[in-house]
């Protein structure tokens, strides 16, 4: 076959392929339009009924009659509604989710070879609220794919399964600030039910660094005052991440003016990590650490902008003596950066003009 024939046949093949793609695109549009219209029609029928049911104006049977005709669309709608409702509203949706033939298919999805299917199954089971899904979700916590483990953990938390805290922390023993934030947020869904497991992890001597870091975060988010002694001990932990989480949380859970905690936190004011120093400044501000004003003034000239910023904010947060120190440092701080950040924070709080007038 010579070159010309190759070009000729390639051109013919490409022409046919292009026509084929065009037809495919047209068909795709037609079917997509039709599906969207059907979805819209279904939603228009079921939404008013569901609203009436949530207001107690109609029975669950009327809604279920429509939902049964389109179980997949129905599940999606119920999940959507569940996201926008409060706890009481979500409770009203539970009978609908349990009465409909949901669950079996999602449970079988957890066994799928495709991780995307396992992910969807794990996510949906949390909304369906069927306690029978707990063993399967616990098993899904061992999945090879991290996002599936995250979805299973979130579903277990949604189901209010208190015993899941430990397995969640074990399966999501992940490093990195963002991942740990996500795990902390998932455990937060359990609310006060996670208190005891979190306290026992904080006091455990065998818990991993990551688990300790996450547990310390959750303690702060839940404002667990009882966690103070354990958190104080973690300030000396060798892992920077654990120290960071402990400082952050102590700023939220310790009593305002608690001398012991303030002393322990301020001992990290010269930490080699700027993130630690940054959080030390914030925590001292939150705890009203008047006696640490010299440390905060030193922080105003830290090489890192965020440390300077948090030190200035902390001085403002401390109240009168802190603000006075901040005003003085506008003119008297030895470091240019310290003077600048003091001006910025005073102005942010509407105090710069007064300071300038007083000084002139």
């Amino acid at each position, binding site marked *: 076959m010579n070159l010309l024939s190759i*070009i000729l046949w390639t051109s013919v093949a*490409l022409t046919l392929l292009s026509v084929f793609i065009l037809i495919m*695109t047209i068909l795709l549009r037609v079917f997509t339009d039709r599906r969207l219209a059907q979805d819209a029609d279904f939603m228009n029928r079921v939404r008013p009924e569901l609203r009436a049911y949530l207001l107690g104006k109609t029975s669950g049977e009327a809604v279920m009659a429509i939902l049964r005709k389109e179980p997949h669309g129905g599940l999606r709608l119920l999940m959507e509604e569940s996201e926008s409702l409060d706890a009481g509203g979500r409770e009203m949706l539970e009978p609908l989710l349990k009465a409909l033939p949901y669950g079996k298919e999602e449970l079988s999805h957890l066994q799928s070879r495709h991780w995307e299917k396992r992910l969807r199954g794990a996510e949906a089971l949390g909304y369906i609220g069927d306690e029978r899904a707990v063993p399967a979700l616990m098993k899904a916590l061992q999945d090879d794919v991290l996002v599936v483990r995250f979805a299973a953990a979130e579903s277990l938390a949604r189901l209010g399964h208190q015993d899941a805290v430990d397995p969640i922390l074990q399966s999501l023993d992940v490093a990195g600030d*963002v991942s740990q934030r996500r795990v902390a947020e998932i455990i937060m869904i359990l609310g006060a039910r996670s208190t005891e497991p979190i306290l026992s992890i904080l006091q455990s001597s065998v818990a991993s660094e990551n688990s300790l870091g996450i547990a310390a975060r959750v303690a702060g988010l839940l404002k667990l005052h009882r966690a103070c002694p354990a958190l104080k001990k973690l300030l000396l932990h060798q892992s920077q991440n654990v120290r960071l989480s402990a400082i952050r949380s102590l700023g939220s859970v310790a009593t305002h003016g608690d001398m012991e905690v303030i002393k322990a936190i301020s001992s990290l004011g010269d930490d080699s990590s700027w993130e630690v120093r940054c959080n030390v400044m914030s925590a001292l501000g939150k705890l009203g650490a008047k006696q640490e004003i010299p440390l905060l003034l030193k922080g105003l000239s830290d090489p890192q902008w965020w440390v300077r910023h948090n030190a200035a904010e902390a001085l403002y947060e401390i109240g009168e003596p802190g603000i006075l120190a901040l005003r003085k440092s506008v003119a008297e701080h030895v470091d240019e*950066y310290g003077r600048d950040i003091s001006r910025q924070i005073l102005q942010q709080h509407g105090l710069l003009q007064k300071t300038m007038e007083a000084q002139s």
Partner: protein
Amino acid sequence: MTIIRILLWVILCYYIALHAIYLLLLLLGALQVRRYQRAITFAEFKTIAESHLTMPVTLVIPCYNEAMVICATIRNILRINYPQYEVIVVSDGSTDGTIDLLSKSFNLRPIERFGSRQITTREILGIYDSPDFPNLVVMEKVNGRRADAINAAVSIAKYPLLCVIDADCLLEKDALLHMARPFLRDSHVAAVAGVVRPSNGLGVVDGEIISKGFPRSLLGMNQEIEYARSFQWARIGLSRLRSMLCISGALILIKKQLFEKLGGPWPDAITDDIEFTMRLNRHLHDKRLKGHEKLVYAPDAVCYTEIPEKLRQYASQRNRWQRGTMQAIIRNRGMLFNPRYGMTGLFGMPFFLIFEGLAAIVEISAWILMVVCLILGVASGFEILLMIYLAYILGVFLSMAAVLITESGRLRSASWPEFWRLILAIFTDNLGFHQFHLVTRVVGTIEYLFGRRDLGSAMDRIDQNKSIYDQ
């Protein structure tokens, strides 16, 4: 005759290699989009939008004489769906009254604001905030090109993520949520690129996108196709191959720490976005640094930018892009065929040089060669026509595939008439428009070689201060 035959074979091999790579990118792009869409969970974006732990973002909008569009862009940005963000607008020595306009529109007042000052920039003349919009900051500085304006904004940016967008851009309401998602799923993500589409044809009222549509002109429609090809499969495929060497400056989200480490975009760059992306790749894929950070692409984070609909402006823009591409490649030539940069050095950079930087020269040479062949009788009229048809149908095939991918996602065209206009543009793209594009790029290459480094003429903007009903 032998030389001509050899040249013919060289060009044919070039075409075969180029389209084989395009086909590979197309398949990879389609697979990636499908995988991406299937991995999105039901409440994922809602969780990101409502979470107190989502990483806050500083949005940077550099502008130079953009009074016609800047207010609409800011209003659009102030409406986006994201839990915590600040907007820093930098007027880079504008002479069209941008600062006065912003002062009036947003009730600006001067403030004291001092940042990390990691990157040296031209003098900052003033910083303002707005009591009506607490997350808006405006900076006025001495003119120093777009890169300098971005660096100045970064010096006072507060948050760990930076999003740089152009002054004529409009973001979809959830675009930032879609861009932040990869950072939340993988701590190794260093930067995320989004999709850019033409904004000409959108219905915009007070910065809000109220209707979608395509540009009215044929030139605009052809660029719509070009953007779809580039963003719907080429970049996704390239990102899979660690070879996405051009992230549009119109939309990028990057870790601030990394941005500062790289020293920000180069102020003397003709196209700072291309040069910065190459340097970013150089840093991320340097095996000596043993980093695990990566660059990813979010195919559903959409930003709309204004495209030129007049030939003169189009030529000027493409000329600048071509000169910028050449400059960026030459500045980062150390990556070319260098195994230290893995796939990026061995495939990405050579691809960018051979099939992007030099593509226009090869293609124009092919056209000239065909005419020479016809004159010298090396090839018959039928053979030449057949080769032209092959080039034409290859373009149609790739564009058609891009439309199929677009239509299968949520970025599908709004109506049937718009869809048919898009199809019509595919068939007319290679009938003059594409060739004109090639000429502008060849001129750009020659001018670059003769030392031209300016930014070309500014684009005429559509006045976004008027409502669409006045246009």
